[in-house]
């Protein structure tokens, strides 16, 4: 059984800071990390493999520049078996449509029984690539998975985390899941894992090998275009209420109600 986990190398957006003098974002020198939600996906893949206790293999793959290899090696160090780097200048500028096409093509090329994705990437924050892949692959999906209750080579029963609680969904394999942080606690790499990961050979896949034409992917293949990027206005202190507790609370509740916050 083959489990494929698409992962993304992203800048650590929690480390991005504001330059207080220019009020702009300073993103230089920010660490590149494996998208946190993807580490939960890799961990779940390893747990599924352990649970199934049969011949399963986990392949992690990423669409990115050559430096994304280090993200793949981090995943190998925690238990993935193989890694593939889908890399080509033609892919640069891909929006979620083009990205899901590229990844789905690569996944089909590698072969799969189960695809596990992280809920969303912390730089794009869209949560669209997972579902997009499942349509390109024409497999059923379960998003926001918080727990895998049952897994066999033929079917899975999962709990989706939704606003009101959970939904129990049964899906046949092959299928695709996107997972939330509720699902597990990712393990740290082991020294042996890191050594194995360092030596591992990473498969490279280009647009040509995948049969993808340049105009179907990358910026040209993306229905959406970013036309402007700007920093949100810096916060300035707002209203402060002083005086009797009852009065202050009343004013606060009124302000929050009017502002549609509660």
């Amino acid at each position: 059984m083959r489990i494929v986990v698409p992962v993304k190398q992203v800048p650590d957006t929690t480390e991005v800071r504001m330059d207080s003098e220019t009020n702009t974002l300073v993103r230089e020198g920010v660490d590149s990390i494996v998208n946190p939600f993807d580490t939960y996906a890799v961990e779940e893949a390893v747990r599924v493999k352990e649970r199934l206790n049969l011949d399963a293999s986990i392949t992690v793959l990423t669409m990115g520049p050559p430096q994304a290899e280090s993200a793949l090696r981090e995943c190998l160090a925690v238990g993935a078996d193989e890694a593939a780097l889908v890399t080509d200048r033609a892919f640069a500028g891909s929006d979620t449509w083009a990205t899901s096409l590229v990844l789905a093509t690569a996944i089909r090329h590698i072969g799969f029984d189960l695809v596990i994705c992280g809920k969303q990437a912390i730089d794009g924050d869209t949560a669209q690539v997972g579902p997009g892949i499942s349509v390109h692959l024409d497999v059923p999906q379960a998003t926001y998975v918080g727990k895998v209750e049952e897994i066999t080579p033929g079917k899975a029963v999962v709990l989706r985390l939704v606003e009101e609680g959970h939904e129990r969904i049964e899906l046949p394999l092959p299928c695709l899941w996107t997972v939330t942080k509720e699902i597990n606690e990712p393990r740290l790499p082991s020294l042996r894992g890191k050594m194995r990961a360092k030596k591992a050979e990473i498969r490279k896949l280009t647009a040509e090998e995948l049969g993808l034409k340049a105009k179907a992917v990358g910026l040209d293949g993306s229905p959406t275009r970013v036309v402007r990027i700007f920093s949100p206005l810096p916060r300035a202190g707002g209203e402060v209420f002083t005086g009797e507790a009852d009065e202050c609370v009343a004013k606060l509740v009124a302000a929050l109600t009017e502002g549609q916050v509660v």
Partner: protein
Amino acid sequence: MAEIICIQDQCTGCGACVEACAYDGVELAEGVALFKESCNLCGACVEACPVNAIVIRKELEATPAAGLDDYRGVWVFGEQHRGEIAPVVLELVGKGRELADARGCELVVVVLGSGMESACRELLEHPVDRVIYAEAAELADYLSGPYGRVFSDLVREHRPEIVLAGATTVGRSFLARVAVEIHTGLTADCTGLEIDEEGLLAQTRPAFGGNIMATILCPNHRPQMATVRHKVMKPAARSSRGGSIEKVEPKRKLVASRAKLLALLPEVEETINIAEADIIVSGGRGLGGPENFKLVEELAVALGGAVGASRATVDAGWKPYSHQVGQTGKTVCPKLYIACGISGAVQHLVGMQSSDCIVAINKDPHAPIFQVTDYGIVGDLHEVLPRLTAAVRAKRG
């Protein structure tokens, strides 16, 4: 393929592009910008360049695709749960009406479900021109396959130019499928939607964990689709336009599903992961002791939110680390963040300052937290919190 170019004559070698790039995609070489393989064409440097020396050139210049004008109408997905229309739908109707008026077209709400007739009629008590109601027993509860296929089929048939949906677990999951099925663009979690000078939908949304804003267009594909979070737009007031309900029966093969919904398990989640929460009430050292976290928790429950904690309280063992907000804890970006007895040290601010609305309650009027709040109360939280909790409960009935 597309490429990014530095117009060397204009480049002053100031390095603003290098600073703006989070992907290590550009460096300065011989005094001008040089793009590396790691550049992913995100465009942040284009914006940052003070002399407009950076250009992203697409191979296929935007020749508008044929037939785009055939797409007319603004659609709102009428999300429903167990027969009730989700509150976000009325907010989308409010915005949708604005967009429809700007485009001079009709506003349609599309409902998928079973036994939804009266809910559809209720929708028509708002400024909606038409409700399309796809009825099937299989559509009573959300399943991504049937909803995606039925909705895509309707879109192909009716050709709306704009589709809006709530950025809920339902909206985000299935609309992403629709976008791929139909081959069009989708922008998630929009905070701003306007029609621009060319009649296109300008979609503005946060990215990078809320640290930047991006405006996005979908120029050559239709419909232009966007999801919007609950409580971002104002709901439409009641005002009927005498609209009609168009009931359709989806083809059998569209509603067949490979996945099965086995059960719905409603829960009062006690340990909401704060990174996912829309509302967070946090406690700091000003609480005075671990037993006072109860005041914070009661307010959080009343608001339907999660409980956060400052590092000091976690280090002191008043709350587990999973609740810690700040530089060494979690970074959160909820709609509402209420800081109780938190002074506002930089390390804490870094973890929550991109929250939409920040409120602080602190007895020290000079506490740094008040520099980033939208609203603050200077007072004793032992008095303020119980009153605030009571007021919230009263409001919610």
